């Protein structure tokens, strides 16, 4: 077997007229965390669903731990643990009963089942609530249990589809730390997110997706280099102005401008030189700038650079 846990080659998926995935290819090495980063609707979840053998690809091929998703889906399913985006638990059963049931679905029995349930409960910090019904849990606790179920059979690869959506910062921190721990223990992680910070913190490699395609691939540093020495400036003004967007686009040293909820995101050559020009233009139009934030190049800037939009769009 090669060193690659996952190999994806020219994957396509369409739903009639709608093309959800268009020619996606990537490899994931064993023992690394690989993130698919992109806004909602980029095709991340569809790719994950194909990797989980929930959807058949229209064309293309993928293997997980050497098992083809087309030829040997059962082999793939044994090798992976899937954390779905939505919480998928039995709310009227206890945490322990949920773990026991899902463990059995992976063939675990007897003492081994009990040991694994103890281990994952400890890992996600729910040992003291194991006998409580799941519908009495907070959203964050349910998210943690949602992850624990996928780890019951100690899979080679864990596939996580936006596991931190809609939870409090404390639970989010807990989950991210767990992902790192799993990886340190040698587990391969395929992670999807639209949070740039998560991809940046966790990933060995990142594929940025948009409109069903991978538009950039590499390590965090490699991707950031795509925007060169450009800075990102976030400007907030008191009221929305259609004119200011067009005027700022024309300012010397500005490469990209996009706006969302009253904030303007600009990619500029050198923020020290460009910022006074932006203020001058705003003054000429009678627009007052209420806040300024200058950011070092990051994945958000990369996405803006590549698409002209922010990851939140």
């Amino acid at each position: 077997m090669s060193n690659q846990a996952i190999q994806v080659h020219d994957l396509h998926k369409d739903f009639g007229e709608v093309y959800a995935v268009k020619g996606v290819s990537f490899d994931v090495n064993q023992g690394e965390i690989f993130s698919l980063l992109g806004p909602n609707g980029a095709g991340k979840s569809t790719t994950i669903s194909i990797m989980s053998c929930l959807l058949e690809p229209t064309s293309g091929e993928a293997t997980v731990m050497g098992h083809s998703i087309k030829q040997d889906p059962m082999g793939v399913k044994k090798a992976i643990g899937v954390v779905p985006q939505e919480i998928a638990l039995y709310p009227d059963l206890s945490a322990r009963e949920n773990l026991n049931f899902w463990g059995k679905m992976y063939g675990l029995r007897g003492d081994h089942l009990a040991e694994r349930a103890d281990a994952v409960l400890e890992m996600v910090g729910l040992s003291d609530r194991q006998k409580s019904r799941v519908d009495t849990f907070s959203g964050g606790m349910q998210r943690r249990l949602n992850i624990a179920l996928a780890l019951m059979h100690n899979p080679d690869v864990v596939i996580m589809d936006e596991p931190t959506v809609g939870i409090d910062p404390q639970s989010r921190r807990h989950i991210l730390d767990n992902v790192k721990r799993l990886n340190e223990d040698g587990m391969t992680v395929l992670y999807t997110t639209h949070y740039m910070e998560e991809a940046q913190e966790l990933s060995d490699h990142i594929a940025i997706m948009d409109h069903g395609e991978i538009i950039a691939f590499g390590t965090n540093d490699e991707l950031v280099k795509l925007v060169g020495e450009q800075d990102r400036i976030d400007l907030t003004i008191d009221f929305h102005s259609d004119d200011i967007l067009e005027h700022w686009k024309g300012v010397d040293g500005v490469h990209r401008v996009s706006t969302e909820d009253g904030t303007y995101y600009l990619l500029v050559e050198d923020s020290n030189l460009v910022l006074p020009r932006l203020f001058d233009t705003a003054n000429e139009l009678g627009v007052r700038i209420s806040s300024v934030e200058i950011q070092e190049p990051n994945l958000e800037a990369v996405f803006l650079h590549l698409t002209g939009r922010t990851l939140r769009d």
Partner: protein
Amino acid sequence: MKKLIDLALKDLRRAFSNIFGVVMMLGAPFLITGLIYFAFGGVAGGDDSFNLQPIRAQIVNLDAGITGFNAGEQLSDFLLSDSVSRIVDATRVESEAEARIAVDEQVADIAVLIPSGFTADAVGNQAEASITLYQDPTLTLAPQIMRDLISQFTDGFAGAKIATDIVQAQFESRGLTLSQEENQAVANRYAEQLQSGGHDHETQTASGIKVVQPGSGTEAEQGGVYIGPVMAGMMIFFVFFMGANGAQSIIIEDEEGTLQRLFTTPTPRGTILGGKLIAVVLILIFQTAVLLIASGLLFDIQWGEPLAAFLASLSMILAAAGFGVFVMSLVKSTRQTGPILGGVLTVTGMLGGLFTTGIPDVPAFLDRAKLAMPQGWALEIWQRVLAGASLEMILTPFAVLIAIGVVFFSIGVLIFRRRFA
């Protein structure tokens, strides 16, 4: 196989932790049947807490009889016997006028006037035997009960007459004739057969209708005869309800996301759907067993021959499970399941005759129309089993119910497989 059982056990665990489901599974059928039972019947087992006032009846027998046989006298003796004394407080009077006066003066509720030619008409070929009931016009229940008692008694004579006619026709076709004494012997033989037709006090007519011989059996047993079909109707309705309710778990799990998650485990989809079907069948087996046993104890319902009752239960359960899977396969979300469970099952149950089992003399076309519904076939088999039908007599509804279960289940599974492909 282990996974199949694990899946079924998980669904059972969830089903029995759902209070609404348990109430609909067991509580509702008993509640409705119990209300009907206590409203129109009495507490079984000799409890005197509910007492219907006996009907005060004046019996006038003017029947002359023929060749030593007097049907009017036998009817009089029956109405005056201890076996019906809790229902009828009968007094024998000599003249029709005296009896009519007793009713007019409300000393009696009803007068039973047996005419002089009653026996002759009953066994002869020309006239139809009739009895006059002279009643207090303000009464409704007492005359109805009296009519039923007399009808049951005279049915025996009608049967004897048919028997002798058939025997006579057979002899005549061979150029032989029967004397009046020989005809009488045939009628007596028929009566003996009727008395010992496989049970101590009840037997089976060709049409499968239960004939209770007046004067035999306990009050509780007689109550069971009437409440049995009502309980059967309720049981069928709620078994079909639970069949669909159980199959609803597929829709619920789809919405909870756990079905999709199950599909990511190394468990074949057929096993997942199979486990769910097993859970539905086990729930229905439990429900049916509890309803049959408990209703037997509470309402003294005699559910017929054990093997026949078992086959009726089995076929009903399979039909209900298959129908439930089919109905739920047409549902897109749990928001639609309320109208489906409440509407479709109620309407099909109604057309299947489940809510009219306590109504006597249902028009023949309605009785036939019920067979357009799966529930109608379930009712048909239970009516036959309650009437003490033999295995041969329940074979047709048994086969139809099994076919209904298989066909609906296959269609339902096909639809589900397409949806989750």
